[in-house]
């Protein structure tokens, strides 16, 4: 931990600005979304997590991200261990075991696993030249590496996050390149295993997917949520109803309006304009992340950056797709905008990594 002039010189102010912007928007939105429901408690907790996350981000900047190369597998082991711990010891809340509680604080290992998986995959890939696509054997190893957390998270049950890490991993693999034979094998295996995974799913999860395909079949449950979400979003129209004025969420029509459906509140209050701004902010972060990946001198940094970008990409797409009725309800939070301490921390650390890589792009380890 030593201070190099170059770090300050190459500090990524733009990324910092983007981060502050998105956090600001998120907190303001959360303030409105929780004003009548559970009261301020939720808002203050989120603000606290944001501060802690931001603090951790700043601290992490002092460390060279290359250190992660060494500890990648150790972190992976820890993540898997935590996931097992959650399944065995975690309290069952609303029918699922996703959290580990230490007194007042509860913590979701699946959120951190996202980031750790990116780091591990980057570690696996970083010695290979860009031009060499992944072959069958490597693919098998990768499958095991991804498969373990995937199954553990699926068992919690958390369909959304397990699919999310699969998509992130797939994006990273596809970027590295894959020969057509392993790809065919992969697709084949996917088709083969889907019915198996289908059996793994709980009734309500299967229901959510069938509801998505036939929303008229579940007017009481998920079908209702989606309908209410679309009403909330659509009724925002161009300029929105105004701060604190969303009727759908305030009058209890939108369940989970501070978690999965937080964006619906935003769309309702700030309209098309507001939604556009938020989407553009996320887009900016993603494109900026790609630029960071490109400008990074070492493959590890690039791969991590690509992983982080895909992490944001998929979270944004799945959540907003869900909220607008394009995708089934699978419980993927929107970064920062959805309430959730672990989500805030993991997204914050992810952006911290981006910043870290960006700062050190002219340094060689």
């Amino acid at each position, binding site marked *: 931990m030593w201070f190099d002039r170059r770090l300050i010189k190459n500090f990524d102010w733009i990324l910092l600005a983007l981060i502050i912007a998105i956090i600001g928007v998120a907190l303001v939105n959360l303030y409105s979304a929780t004003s009548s429901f559970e009261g301020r408690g939720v808002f203050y907790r989120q603000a606290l997590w944001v501060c802690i996350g931001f603090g951790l981000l700043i601290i992490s900047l002092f460390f060279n991200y290359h250190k992660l190369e060494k500890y990648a597998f150790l972190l992976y082991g820890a993540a898997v261990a935590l996931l097992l711990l959650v399944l065995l010891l975690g309290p069952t809340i609303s029918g699922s075991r996703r959290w580990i509680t230490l007194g007042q604080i509860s913590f979701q290992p699946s959120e951190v696993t996202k980031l750790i998986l990116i780091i591990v995959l980057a570690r696996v890939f970083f010695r290979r*030249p*860009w*031009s060499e696509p992944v072959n069958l054997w490597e693919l098998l190893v990768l499958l095991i590496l991804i498969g373990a957390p995937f199954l553990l998270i699926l068992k919690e049950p958390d369909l959304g996050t397990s699919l999310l890490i699969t998509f992130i991993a797939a994006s990273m693999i596809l*970027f590295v*390149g894959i020969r057509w034979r392993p790809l065919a094998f992969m697709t084949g295996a996917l088709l083969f295993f889907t019915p198996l995974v289908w059996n793994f799913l709980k009734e309500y999860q299967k229901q959510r997917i069938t509801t998505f395909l036939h929303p*008229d*079949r*579940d*007017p*009481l449950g998920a*079908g*209702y949520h989606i*309908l*209410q979400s*679309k*009403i*909330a*979003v*659509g*009724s*925002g*129209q*161009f300029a929105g109803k105004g701060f604190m004025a969303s*009727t*759908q969420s305030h*009058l*209890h*029509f939108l369940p989970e309006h501070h978690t999965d459906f937080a964006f619906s509140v935003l*769309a*309702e209050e700030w*309209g*098309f304009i507001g*939604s*556009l701004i938020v*989407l553009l902010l*996320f*887009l900016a972060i*993603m*494109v900026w992340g*790609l630029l960071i*990946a*490109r400008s990074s001198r070492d493959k590890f940094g690039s791969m991590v950056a*690509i992983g982080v*970008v895909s992490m944001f*990409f998929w979270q*944004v*797409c799945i959540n*907003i*797709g869900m909220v*607008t*009725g*394009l995708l089934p309800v699978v419980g993927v939070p929107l970064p920062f905008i959805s309430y959730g301490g672990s989500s805030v921390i993991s997204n914050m650390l992810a952006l911290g990594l981006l910043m870290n890589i960006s700062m050190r792009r002219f340094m060689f380890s």
Partner: protein
Amino acid sequence: MERLIYAAKEEISNLDLRFLLAALIIVLVIGSLLVRLWFLQIYHGTYYADLSLNNRVKLRYISPLRGKIYDRQGTLLVSNRPSFDVCVDLDERIDWTKVSGKLSPILGMTEDELLARIDTGERDQLQNTVRLKSDISWLELSQIETNRYDLPGVIIQVEPKRDYIYPGLASHIVGFLGEINKNELMSGDYKNVQSGEYIGKSGVEKTLGDYLRGSKGGRQVEVDASGREVRTIARQNPIAGDDIYLTLDLSLQEKLQEELEGQVGAIVAIRPSTGEILAMASSPTFDQNTFVRGMTPESWKEITSNPYKPLQNKAIQGQYPPGSVFKVIMALAGLQENVITEQTPLKCTGQHRFGNRVYHCWKKWGHGAIKLEDALAQSCDIYFYQVGQMLGVDKIAEYARMFGLSQPTAILLDHEMPGLIPTSAWKLKRFNVPWQKGETLSLAIGQSFTLVTPLQVARFMAAVANNGYVMKPRLVRKITDNEGRTIRLMEPEIVTTLPFSKTHLSAVRKALKEAVNGERGTGKKAQVKGLTVAGKTGTVQVVAIKDAMNRRKLEDMPYEHRDHAWFTCFAPYEDPDIALAIIIEHGGHGGSTAAPVAQRIFKSYFEHHETSGEVLTRDWKREPGKKNNG
């Protein structure tokens, strides 16, 4: 070197392509999300804005029909009837004074009462409604329906209500419903039930509640600015609960309850070959429909303050000393342990000295030299004192446990009591005093600390009747879904196979036959013409009376001091179809009070029923669990 640079350059430009591709994909996808948002917010914006105004899409639940309960022949015992509740929707901004003004004459409640209910009445959380009056009449219903336009925000909810077709009959077995309370909600046992809904609180309504409940349906409705339903957007039909077919025989159940009228006690009728409960009655009983209609505090007080506890199912909750009925077990235990044989005579002089005490037989001058068959048929105490002495308390307990005593039978009902069989270890733990040998004597004739339930007695008698198999008591024959398809079919289950030889069992059965049909049998009053009944009487002392001479006539003794009367039996002797256990609290002498009850029951039953068609070979080789068509 040049080649390396060239390769590196190519690698890098190839890389740039990938980044470009990635960026393009991201922009495209985000773009399509924006298009979707535009679609919802701009293109259809006004439509959604309209729907969101005044909360125009709502969820209204439809209660499912609860499953029905039938007897073994398919006679309907418990059904549902519609009940109409008047509710108001609190989401609407409505001038309630106007509405209550209109409602007051219709419902017969004052405007103030109505307004008070609207203000402070309990809310249905999900639909945000308050119930003003439940179970309204057809007249009230039609008046509200015709005046719909003037009653905005008023909703009629149709709720199915339970209809107990035979009030007071099998009340303890069927049970009743009640509103779910806080503890039950938090326990997690009732996952799909909301506050304000009804669940089974006792009997089969409770233990099979998950089958009976069904699943809720609902409608997404669009309402106008005044809260009137405009249209149904979507609908999901409720799924009616599963139907339960009990093993009970309604006419037999009626007969049993009739026999208990005016008495306190219980009767259990069980089929020895399968363990099916053909009838189970407890007295006093209660009318479940009072729970449905909404109990007034007075009627509730009446039920709970009744000292004979009508809500208690004495067949499984009543724990009584078995009295002489226990001698059946003693006989088999003695034979098995070889301390007696069928031919061994023991001496009964009417008095038996043990330690420094004298124990008596009920027959003052004794039975003389008596063998097993007579000892059982005439219920000689001293014979069994001696058997008891030879076996010892722990051996006796071992055999008693084999018959299922001292444990719950795991019948599908709540609050079953296990009874008690004392052992030396138990006494030490409980009283800190060791077991005295003299206590074994009273244990042998079914007094002492021993406690049994009528169900346990019926079951062990059935085990003797079916040649040595302790069966699991079954209350349910089958469960069908709401379309009549069988989803569960109950099979007979053997809990314990007794170790006694067929010869010994046969000898005991013969003695029981003698008890009813022999000259000096104690159970003579259970004789039925044209049918061979076998059984055992029991008389349980409630108050210790030292000298047999001082026992007064029954009518002269206060009720609480009278002995309990037991009689347990089975019939027909050759091919047992039913085993009964009867206890009449404070009924006096088993032979005089309980035995005649059995006689009347068998008479009525066998007049109307054929025997079960059980396969039975000459040497009593029997396969329990053969399906019967009774």
